[in-house]
């Protein structure tokens, strides 16, 4: 007998393996999208479907040591950004949700307005209508009324708004520590495992961790020379 091809999850039916759509758009922070894809690659049970926008390709080449082609290879399936006929354009193609990282304010506006231009906008539109999880990682500061109202409207629809804001309770020592922590917080939103995440469990634990690790606490003093 054939094994069942679909799983039942909180938001409906899903494919027999966790299947995640990853969109990368033209906001700064391409390294975040790349780190997420690398982390997901280490979770072999997760199938990743990647769309790079035109300007994501530019920020990848600008901000990371990778080429866009190398980033594409980190995913199981990759689609051109203008391919409106791709599988992820249809709700009948089962997925466990979508993350857009980094997410430009233009993409936020497009998703909010339902203006499904390009495959990233259409895939997000589908994820919303099918009531599947949608996670946006908007990298922008400061935020205008336009930005805030668009984000607010999406939050009202149940979208997770996860701006890439470094945390400091885990005493990040490097930019890599910050990237790993942000990726873990995105995985948390998608119910995917992040076993290496450093989590806040109260001040007492934090104190004893600091005492046991001389490097865990950034001592006050002059800035590190850059």
């Amino acid at each position, binding site marked *: 007998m054939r094994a069942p091809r679909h799983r039942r999850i909180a938001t409906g039916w899903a494919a027999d393996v966790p299947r995640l759509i990853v969109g990368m758009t033209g906001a*700064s*922070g*391409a*390294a*975040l999208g790349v780190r997420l894809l690398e982390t997901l690659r280490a979770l072999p049970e997760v199938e990743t479907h990647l769309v790079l926008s035109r300007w994501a390709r*530019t*920020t990848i080449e*600008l*901000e990371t*040591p990778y080429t866009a082609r190398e980033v594409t290879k980190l995913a199981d399936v990759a689609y051109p950004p203008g391919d409106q006929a791709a599988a992820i354009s249809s709700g009948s193609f089962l997925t466990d949700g979508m993350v857009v990282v980094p997410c430009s304010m233009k993409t936020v506006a497009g998703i909010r307005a339902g203006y499904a231009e390009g495959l990233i906008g259409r895939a997000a539109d589908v994820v919303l209508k099918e009531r599947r999880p949608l996670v946006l990682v908007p*990298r*922008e*500061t*400061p*935020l*205008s*009324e336009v930005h*805030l*109202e668009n*984000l*607010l409207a999406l*939050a*009202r629809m149940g979208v*997770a*708004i*996860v*701006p*890439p*804001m*470094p*945390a*400091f*309770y885990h*005493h*990040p*020592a*490097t*930019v890599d*520590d*910050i990237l790993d922590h*942000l990726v873990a*917080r995105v995985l948390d*939103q998608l119910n995917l495992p992040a076993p290496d995440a450093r989590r806040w469990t109260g*001040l007492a634990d*934090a104190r004893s961790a*600091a005492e046991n690790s001389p490097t865990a*606490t*950034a*001592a*006050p*003093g002059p*800035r*590190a020379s*850059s």
Partner: protein
Amino acid sequence: MTDQRNVTVAVTGAGGTRIARFVLEALVNDDRVGQVDLMVSASGRKVIAHETGCESVGEAVELVLGGAAKKVVTWQPEDLAGGPTSGSYPSWGMLVVPCALGVVGRIAAGTANTLIERAADVALKERRPLVLCVRETPFSLIHLRNMTQVTEAGATVYPMIPTFYNMPTSVDQIHEEFTARLLGFIGLPQSDYYAYAGTQTPAHRDRMGR
């Protein structure tokens, strides 16, 4: 110098208090700034203590800066009669860095329970700049509603999100860039930050090694 400005700075209970130190250092060292009125909330003290390994007691300026500074006047957050409680007190505007989302909620609601919230209330009613450097992720619906409300009332929500186009190679570089951008935003432009000017800027090429 009469054209120097007084800047109010509040440090509240969110992560990233090292950035408050960078910002305060920059203000103290800036000839365009005559005085800094500093307030540190009780939660802010705890976060500073956690992030630096110092004690949470002591002078506010020592806690944030690691030393004294003549330009800095400190106020107790529970002192609702302190100078910044009145619009008549000279102030160019106010920075809250880092800004806890509870503080944003109380500013949005106008519940001036502490001198920090009252000073923010005053900045809004006097139509002075109020910049809230929030540190939180994810944002809930409540956070976004409150941030929208304070923005409509004239504040600027300035999340402590790094830039990546400047290719930061250390945590302090992220903080320095944020500080320089923030000070530029409030009209104190800095000379040593990365101004994005397309893909061929020298700073970009240098850090990429291309």
